[in-house]
Structures are given as C-alpha cells and as structure tokens.
C-alpha cells in the first residue's frame, strides 16, 4: 500500500455532552474509538493516516470537564481546561505558579488556547520513528529503531528504557508530579491516581504512556493545597524558543523554613519514557540549606544510573545542571 499523508481518513464523529455518555460511547467503540479533546496530538496521528479510528468521540462539549474550581484542600482543574486558562488562572498563578509556568511553556499561544491540560499530560511520545508509523515495539512490532546502532536519537531517553527509548513530551507532567496532583480517571468507574503513578514506562505497558486504557477518560486533575505558595522552579531547555518540546525540563517545589529545605518535590521530563520523580534527590536536600555542595550533590545524584544513547550524552549533564539550578533557586 502506497504511503499517503495529510488527508484525514473518514470516521464517525460523536459529540457527547456528559462524562457518562462519553464513557459509554468509548466502551462501545472499544479499540476502534478515539477520544478527541484539543485535537493537536490527534490531528497529527489522523493526518499521518496512522491512527484510523472508526469512531471519534469528541469530548469537547462536556462542560463538567472544563474549568478550574476551588475545592476544599486544593483546586480541581477540568481535563478540558485549556493550557492558556491554566497559565492565566489567578489562583493557579498565585498559589501553584509551578503549574502555570509549565503550561506557559507549552508550544505556542494557539496550541495553549486549543490544547487542554488533559491532552498535554495524555499525549503520546514524539519519537520520530514511532510517529512515522514504523512498526516498533510501541507500535506493536518487535524492534526499537531509535536505539539501533546508527539511529538518530538525540532527543531520546537516558533512563527508564525498556525496549523503547522514547521520552514523555509533556511540560505540565513534571509540574503536576512536583505538586502531588491527583488524576481523576473515569471508565465508568472513577479512579484516582497520584500524578507520579499516572505515567507509566514501557516496562509496564509499552503501548501506553499513562495508566489509561481504551475506555478510560481523564476528567479532572486535582492539585492539593499542600504545596500552595511554596518556592517553585520550572525550566525547559529547548532548541527554539517556540513550538519545540523540551530536551530536558525540570519542575521543583520546595517548602522552606528560613534557609532550610523542609520538604521538596523534584521531577524531570524529556529524559525517560515517563516524567521522573527524583525522590532520592528530594531526600538528599531535605533538612539542608541549598549550599553549593548540596546543589552539586543533588545534580550528581539525579543522574545516577543514566545511560546515554549514541547521540544524547548531553542530556545527562543538562539534567544534572537543571537539577542543580532548581536547588540553587532556594539558596540563601
């Protein structure tokens, strides 16, 4: 069959207005269904004619999945809330600036206007072998093209590989992990996941980036008040100042008592098939002041166990330096 791109294959479109209906429709459609929200990741798959669902379930009309609400003990963000709304919402900005900064760093204004928080955390990897439709492990095949001896893997992982060496591309994911966010998944059973557990590596299931299976719908993200008004640090290193996914990103939250770090959460992305929480580093810095020694130790500890592919050794030092900087951000 000859290769063709850029025309979306035909599908049936359903546009439910409640979570209940959406979950029902998803269940009926099974493997032939596809959930459409902001549509950015979706359009790529469709236009490449690689993903060809029979039924597309456009959840954009489900109002209960949209908007940011004050809840006891935190804020609840509907999965359909646009990244722009997340970035500009007053309470999120003032109390959970880590998340708004991360959202602000996504792609472009238009993509942030259209793209949703749910979509940003659920998006598929950008490994260009996989996205080109090559039959790799993740696509159900039995080879990883990106780790072949001559492969082009500058943007692939330095840890967490398991047959697959792709990375998670989300900017908001590490921020949500650092904020101990909870992900609300409906299927129709309602489940709650720690953000850290929501993302999965290829050793758990190589075909998915998150715990969500066909039929699951991410409806809300809950950000608990625990880290509100903490000291935050977010940084994303990318090739261009716009559009690009991160090479490496870091998101950190620190609770300070004077100059002492009482508690910390540090997560990085762009280094593994899932956003990585650096709990060992968190333990290291806890109870310490962010001295240069601690900054350096944090950086060195962060990269323990990393292993470069042919073209991405730089990510190891980039990750080390970003973790150092995150800790440095709370130095006296």
């Amino acid at each position, binding site marked *: *069959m*000859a290769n*063709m791109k*850029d025309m979306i294959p035909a599908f049936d479109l359903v546009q439910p207005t409640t979570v209940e209906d959406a979950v029902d429709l998803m269940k009926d459609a099974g493997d032939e269904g596809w959930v459409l929200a902001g549509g950015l990741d979706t359009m790529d798959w469709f236009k490449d004619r690689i993903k060809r669902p029979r039924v597309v379930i456009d959840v954009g009309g489900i109002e209960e999945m949209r908007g940011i609400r004050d809840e006891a003990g935190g804020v609840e963000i509907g999965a359909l809330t646009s990244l722009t709304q997340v970035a500009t919402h007053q309470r999120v900005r003032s109390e959970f600036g880590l998340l708004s900064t991360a959202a602000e760093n996504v792609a472009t204004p238009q993509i942030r206007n259209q793209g949703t928080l749910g979509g940003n955390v659920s998006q598929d990897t950008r490994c260009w072998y996989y996205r080109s439709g090559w039959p790799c492990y993740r696509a159900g095949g039995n080879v990883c093209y990106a780790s072949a001896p001559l492969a082009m893997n500058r943007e692939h992982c330095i840890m967490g590989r398991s047959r697959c060496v792709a990375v998670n591309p989300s900017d908001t994911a590490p921020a949500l992990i650092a904020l101990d966010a909870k992900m609300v998944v409906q299927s129709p059973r309602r489940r709650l996941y720690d953000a850290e557990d929501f993302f999965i590596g290829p050793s758990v299931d190589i075909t998915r980036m998150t715990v969500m299976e066909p039929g699951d719908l991410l409806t809300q993200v809950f950000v608990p008040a625990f880290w509100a008004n903490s000291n935050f640090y977010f940084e994303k*290193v*990318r090739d*261009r*100042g716009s559009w690009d996914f991160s*090479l490496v990103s870091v998101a950190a939250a620190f609770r300070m008592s004077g100059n002492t770090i009482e508690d910390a959460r540090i997560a990085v992305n762009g280094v593994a098939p899932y956003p990585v929480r650096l709990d060992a580093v968190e333990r290291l810095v806890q109870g310490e002041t962010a001295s240069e020694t601690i900054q350096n130790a944090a950086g060195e500890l962060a990269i323990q166990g990393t292993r470069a592919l042919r073209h991405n050794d730089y990510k190891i030092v980039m990750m080390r*330096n970003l973790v150092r900087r995150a800790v440095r951000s709370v130095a006296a």
Partner: protein
Amino acid sequence: MAEKLVGVDYTAVDLRAKITGRAKYAEDFRAQGMVFMKLLLSPMPHCRVRGVDDSRARQVPGFIDIMRASDVPQPEGPSEAMLTDEPKYEGEPILAVAAESEEACAAAIEAIELDLEPLPFVLDPLQSLRPNSPNAYTEGNQFSGQDGWSTYKWTDADFAEVDAGRMPNPATPIVEWSKGDIEAGFAEATVIVEEMIVHQSATHHPMEPRSTMAYWENGRLHAFVSTQSAQRTKMGMAGALEIDPEEITFVSEFTGGGFGSKIPGHTHMSLAPLMSRKIGRPVMHRVTRYEENYIGRARPGFQSWVKMGFRADGKCTAIDLMIVQDSGPYGAGDHNTASNVADITYTPGNMRYRGFPIYTNTPPKAAQRGPGGAQINGMLEPLIDKAARELNMDRLAIRILNAPTQAYGMGPRNQMLTSVFAKEALQKGAELFDYENKIRLSGQRNGSKVTGIGMGLSTYTAGSRGYDGLMVIRPDGKLYVYQGIGNLGTHSISDTARPAAELLGLNWDQVEIMWGDSSRGMPNSSVQAGSQTTHAHTRANYAAAQDALRKIRAIAARQLGGNANQYRVDNGRVMGPGGSMTFAQVAQRAIALGGEYDGHTLPTDINAATVPAANMHVGTGLVGVARDNFGGEGGIYSWLAVFGLIELDVETGHFETKELVCATDVGTVIHPRSLGAQCYGGAIQGMGLAMSQRWVFDPQYGVPFANRLYTARPPSIMDAPRSCAWDAVGIPDPQTPVGAKGIGEPSVGAGSAVLTTAISDAIGGVCLCRTPLTPDLILASLEGRPLPFGRLDQHVG
C-alpha cells in the same frame, strides 16, 4: 515639485491585499469543475519501479486518472523529471492521481500496489567517496555531457588522512582552481589556522508550499503558479510543456516566499497543466508541507577542510580550501560560489580550491538565499577570530585589513567588481554597534550567562544587465509600469519603478504597477534570484522611462514649439518655452501620432519576448519601452557587515541573541524600510542555519525525519534578536544609472557568521566548526563530554 521617491519609505502597493485576505496565492484560485491531484512519493531513497497495480485505485469513487513517468518528459543524465520510475530520494514523485476530491486522491493512492526493487543508496557524499562505496546512481556518481557516467572514489590513503582529522590530498579533484602562489603565501604566514568544518543541509521551507492550479480553454493554458519569477517562469513552463509561451495565461500575483527554491518556478509546476490537458478538467495540485519537504529543495551541505595563513600584521596570505558537497540527486553549484566568496571576502591573493560535488540520494538541492556564500561565511568567520586571537589582534581590525577594495579581483579569473565598499560597511557597522565598548563585554560572566560578541563580513551577487522595461502613460494621465518580475515579497515590483517615476516627475499616486498576470504584458525580465532584480529592473525601467521622457518632450515640442530638450516634467505635466501639457494630453497626442509614440513601432533591440507584451498596449497611450543598454563591466556584488551580542547559558548550552547590527553596501538606497527588512530577515534566516535548522536522515534506512517544520526548526520570533539596527554606506554604484545594487543574499551569510563567531567567543574561542550549533553540542563542548556527532557527520541532529 513632484515628491521625491528614491530613498523614501512608502506603503507597498500590494500590502492592503495581503492583510485583508484578498491577495491570491496559487492555491487560492478556483475554477468551474475543478478537481484535485496528489502525488505518490517514493518510500525508498533509491529504487526501481518494477510495477504499479492501480486496479483498486481505479475503483475508488471519484477517481479520474493517473499519470506515470511515461506520460512526462524524461531528461537524460542526472536531470530531474516530474515523475520517475527510478526514484533517487525518499519522497520523489512516482505518479500523480487526479480525482474529484483530495480525499479520493488519497484513498486512490493508498490503494495502489507498488512493486519496487530497492537499489543501493548513499546519503553522505563523503561515504560515496570511500573505495567500493555505493553510488547515488546505478551508473556511477559522476556525469559529464561528453563522457557520460563514471565512478569517482578516493583511495584508502586519502581516507587515512580524513580519519586522522587531516585534509586529504586526492589525486584528481573534480573541480580545482588556484591563484597566486599558495606555498609562498603560507611561507609568508606567521599563523596558520586549520579546521575541518561541516555545514549541514537545510530545507528552504518557504511559507507557501508550491501548489499549482491549471486549466485549458480553447487550447490556451491558464496557470496559477507559486514562483519567484513571473515572465521567466512562463517561458520555462512553455518549454516543459512544449508550447508557445504566448499560449499561456500565466498568473502569479503573490508568492509566499521561495528563497531560491522557486526561481524559474519548479519542476513539478507543470504536472497540473499536464494532468489538466489529459483529463480536460481544471486541476488543483495542493502541495502539502510534507511534500514540500521533499520536492521543495534544500541548501547543499558541505564537509570541508580549510587552511588559512596570516601574516604577523593580520593580513591573510593564503587559503587552501577543500569542499565535499552534497549535491543531492540533481546537482548544485554552491561549492564553486563558496570558493569565490572565500577569496573576495578575505583577499588572500594566494588560494587553492578543490571541490568535490557528489550526488546523493537525498532530496534535491537548489540555490538557497546566498547559495555557497552563506555557508562559507558562517564557516570561515570563526577562523578569522582564531587568527586574531593567536596574533593578539583586534577582531574588527583584522577584518577591515582583509576586507577587499575594488582593486581585488575575485576568484581564479580575478573578476573585477563594479563597486566594493566593504571596509566602509565594517566601519559603519562598528560605529552603529558601538564596537569599542561592546567588545569589552566579550566573555563577561553574569551568573551562568556569558556574553559573546559576533561579527562578520558577507557578500553576494547583486545585479545583472540587459533586460527590458515597458510602461505606458495613458490618457488618464497615469503611468502604468508593466512588470515581468515576480512578487515574492521583496517589494521589487514597485521599488524598481520608483526611480523611473521620479525621472518622469510623477507623484506616486500617479503610478500604477501592473504585475503578476501575463495577459497584462510582461517584458523580458530577469529571474528573481541572485539579488539581481533591484539592480536589473531599476535599470530596465529607467531605460523605458528615458524612452518615455524623450517621447514626452518630443510631443511637447511638436505641440507647443521650441526644442524638445528645453522641456521638463513635473507633477504629471510637461512644460517648457511653449507652455505646458498634462500627461493626459501627451498620451492622447501619442495615440494620435502613432508610430513609436504609442507603440506601433518598437525598438529593434528589445528582446523577442517583450514584443508581444508591448503589442498588447499599442495605441493605448504613450509607450515607453527600451532595453537596458547602460552597459557596465565587472561583477555586481553587495556587502554586509554584521555585529551581534549573545548571552549564552553555560549550564544549558542555550543562548539568546540580544543585539543584531547590519551595515550594508548596496549602492543607492531605494526603499530604506524594505532594505532594513532584507538585512534582518536574511540575517535571521542565516541565524537559523547556524543555530537550529536541521535535516536528519536515518542512515540505515535513508529516510529523513526532520521533515516537518517543528522538527526542521526554522527560527521563530522568540529566536530573533531582541534589538536590531541597520545602516547603509549609501555610496552609489558608479556603473548603474540610479546607483542601486540588490540586497537579500549577503545578509544570510552575515547572520550565520554573527552566531558562529559569537558562540565561539562565548565559549572561550573554541570553534565547534559545524552547523547548526544546538544546545547539545555547545553544552557537550563546555562540559568536556563526548560531542553528539562525529566531526564530519552530515544529516544529523
């Protein structure tokens, strides 16, 4: 007094259309009964099409027809055909399908079964020089019209040198020239700098993909084309279709950029006309970005070795340059230009050049804004700094010392140039940049940020001679200027008419620019490439205006008495000893007089292609038509000196460009704001080459991955300098009537150079000697980690 037009900003005549949605680019045209066409692209970098089973495709509802390689001309040798049965790169069009809708085109193409025989392929030209390595063509990797195909390889001994990081010495270079005495030049040198440098390929990616719409009506072709040039593209299309150019109504009012990839149009623009002729329906060929990546051309990459010698006072005394060029499947001439630009920019007097253009199975290469020059300027400028450092010399001083004057002849034949104010440009730029103070910031550290100062000198062709101008003063009193040049956004369609209008004493609102539609008449014109249009068509229009002025005065003298030379023009009137006449009256008089006045008689020296255009206007008013006979000797080159300041984060390898300053020698400035935009725009494109743009191939499978904008990474507004300034030397070129030379191309090499030098400056004088200089590479270098790529690797990133 009529207003002054030359050297004054004005609103481009097409701007309102562009920002109201009225401007029609090729894909915006529609026709009754229009159907669509799509291409089937080769999935392999080199293969033979043994069979095509289209039986299922023909069953797809809406399918109309299919065109194969056998339906289109197949040129001999390494020349590109519109469709081929032996694709030589992944993405080369094999066949075209027409259907009632694009969805049906896509479904039909997917239903086609191809029987392909994979053939050996080569992506990296250097690999193709290794003994017993594959060639891009089954017949070999070299072609000459006389001898046909042959195979050219280096020896194991040559590669022992390459692998040891030294410049090899192949027995018989494909291209070789030298001047002066290179041995003596190096003997004279106190400092010799030597590097291996890679400049990677980069796709053009103009904003508008090369779509075409075409239909035939009573044997006449109506073509709506995305092209840089207009009249010349019409001629090219007529040639490809083997029809009389006058049987084409050629429309290209607006083109969304080309940067060298659509100079005389492009190979695939003739597919829609052919398909339309075959099926008898209007055909829209909407080219997608994905397709544009493949058929849209790329700048050839270089793998090179260079050795430069400098005297104790900083004078460059010798250059030994060797370039292996990725020529793609259909060739490119960048490397030759690069050698000439290296010579004229650094004036060594003694130079040897050896060139190795090698065919590869990568998408076709073509001129890209500053072809050859942009690569070599970005590559060599850090070496000038290296020499300055070793000689403990000021970086600006060494550049001013080595910059050419008009006394230096370029290249092997010591070609003389019409005007060279390169030193002046460097001085002007340094002043504007506040070089004295800024250079002190070099290497200054602020937290993790370090300041790097960049600078460079760049040059490129900027003119040509001998084209025709055509204009008519109609009885409404207005001047109608008929432009055969294309409109790709440089404002040339109106800029080149302003000196003519000024000569005729007209206010700008008394001038109408007619362009973009051959049914309005297009005189013989240059292609819109090589930055030649401003020079060439300012001249051509000036010649036509002189012709019109002569006729105006003659009519006034006839009508009002006195000597024609005593009449002058101003504000749409001609006045002299016998009184005055309006241009409206003059136009009526011209029509009444006939003969040469209203175009019944045409000059005998105008190009044959101008005659039918002029004939369209016979009897409509006073016709000014003439060939540019102003003459002149020597090459026409513009210059651009560039300065910049970056802040580089040593912990991430990321940098931000804070300042960009351009100072240019383009002769007389016609349209200041547009000139500034050409300086900055070209420079930022060059910065893209230096910092982000890439084209990555999987070497095992031979397919490109950076085949989209987000993976190819052209510079975004966030990557542009935080502040920009420009100035012009402003000395007219003495050999051209208005004194104006072109701009556009030198700015690209300048932009690349300002970053390659600034980055080198920021990281302690290290030349990473490759493009693009992405954060990974910079960080790895700073941290002393293994570099992500081999020194000579091409197509990586």
